[in-house]
């Protein structure tokens, strides 16, 4: 499988990374060289093999359904690039989303 320029643009759009037209050409070459190398996985027979999702076969624990933290508004907002403080609380600020 080989990526065309339109696919590179579509992936970049899905990944929310702005790319220039020159970037697209270069990325197309680089990504195709990586994907061509990855193709060798098709030599491996994997019929009936259960996919391994993690490094160890873990049984996930349950914990008590209790509040263990919270009320850290200032710590959470401390690194905000932009914030608004209003009478009803403090928020992360972003460009207008809804007209």
């Amino acid at each position, binding site marked *: 499988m080989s990526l065309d320029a339109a696919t590179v643009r579509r992936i970049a759009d899905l990944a929310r990374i702005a790319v220039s037209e020159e970037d697209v050409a270069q990325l197309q070459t680089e990504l195709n060289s990586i994907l061509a190398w*990855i193709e060798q996985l098709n030599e491996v027979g994997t019929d009936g093999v259960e*996919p391994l999702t993690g490094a160890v076969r873990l049984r996930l624990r349950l914990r008590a359904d209790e509040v263990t933290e919270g009320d850290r508004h200032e710590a959470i907002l401390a690194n905000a690039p932009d914030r608004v403080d209003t009478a009803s609380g403090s928020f992360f600020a972003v460009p207008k989303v809804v007209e």
Partner: protein
Amino acid sequence: MSKPTDLTIAEARHLLARRQLSARDLATAHLEAIERLGSLNAFITVTADRALADSARADDRIARGEARPLEGIPIAVKDLFCTEGIRTTAASRILDDFTPPYESTVTRKLWEAGAVCLGKTNLDEFAMGSSNTTSAFGHVVNPWRRRGDNRDLVPGGSSGGSAAAVAARLCLGATATDTGGSIRQPAAFTGTVGIKPTYGRCSRWGIVAFASSLDQAGPIARTVRDAAILLREMAGFDPEDATSADVPVPDFEAAVGRGVKGLRIGVPREYRLPGMSAEIVALWEQGAAWLREAGAELREISLPHTKYALPAYYIVAPAEASSNLARYDGVRFGLRIDPGGDLDDLYAATRAAGFGAEVRRRVLIGTYVLSAGYYDAYYLKAQKVRALIARDFDRAWQEVDLILTPATPSSAFAIGEKQDDPVTMYLNDIFTVTANLAGLPAISVPAGLDGGGLPLALQLIGRPFDEETVFAAAAVVERAAAFDALPAIRA
């Protein structure tokens, strides 16, 4: 007495306990060394005031007879661990001036054990790289020099700053992380010892995530014993990390002198690559001979899917990275570029400006292999191959207790070499990546020098949660190799 910066952790601990050396003097000697050798670019942030305060407290505790296991030991922290109140960058522009309001579990445990914080070390951006040349804060210089060649060499990556700092004697030990070889490959390139423990041994909480099913923290130090001392304090169950293993942490240091008598050690034939350098082959055979002389039984074994580990990794790791790095959007922390459009434009402009070329490449590969129509062909296929790689090891453990391999296919290369295409760089991790995919503990231990006078290392891979046997065998290799070469640039 040796220079304070030349001490091992075990030696410093001994001198501190007997009050023959103060933590303050030890910290000062290292801070001076860091400043003098700033051209190595091993540190992104030096925390001199913090180090002095930590060491003063350590001296007080020692005087009161309340010393903890690492009391007064100056260490450096890979700048991928969140440190409360200390800027944490992951060597990326996108984190900008991010100053974590919390502490990673591993570093919290180290401070609670009395360690002194010297600062945060440089790395490949988001730990993605094998040469420490993808850092937004510039490349790190390996303190070693090839004989008759004055070019700067890479320290390996991604934990290149930690490895260079330990090798150049800018700290007694350092934290690092390993997703595909990022502890062991830089340790090998700098003549230091690095262990990636079993997946789940160290909490990932507060470590900037790259590929969550592969990432593990571990130490880099100058001796096997020092690595064991550090790992004991870094490891342990943490309810904050759902994949943290609820198993007891043994006294790794006690295992260091245990020896290898009666152990069965496997030599996997698939690691003998076509065209592999004769020096690496000879080193590997020498390592097997040392272990045999120490009483181990060496056996050839087969790990048939080895060849497919790297391509499988380059699907799984970018897929997880594309998901983990989705959080860098310019809204809650870090860099924001607002081109004056809508929210999507803000995301796209921020991420274009904030991510370097290698990170962008991996996020795009990851996005592609997870996208509709390609998921089964790439991601699911890679997870199945990963299962086969893990099964290879499961079968090997029925025959052997440990596996011996080279750590890297070459010694350190010059900055700018191996950068023609991404795949050439990826091949650096060919011997290390299998242990990440299977979640196994693996150590890199210096074992000799190549023709150019650069360090070469061997790798020992162990059963899950059997770091003790890994340390025991690494100590045998260390003793037999009697590796005492020193880097050209050091404090």
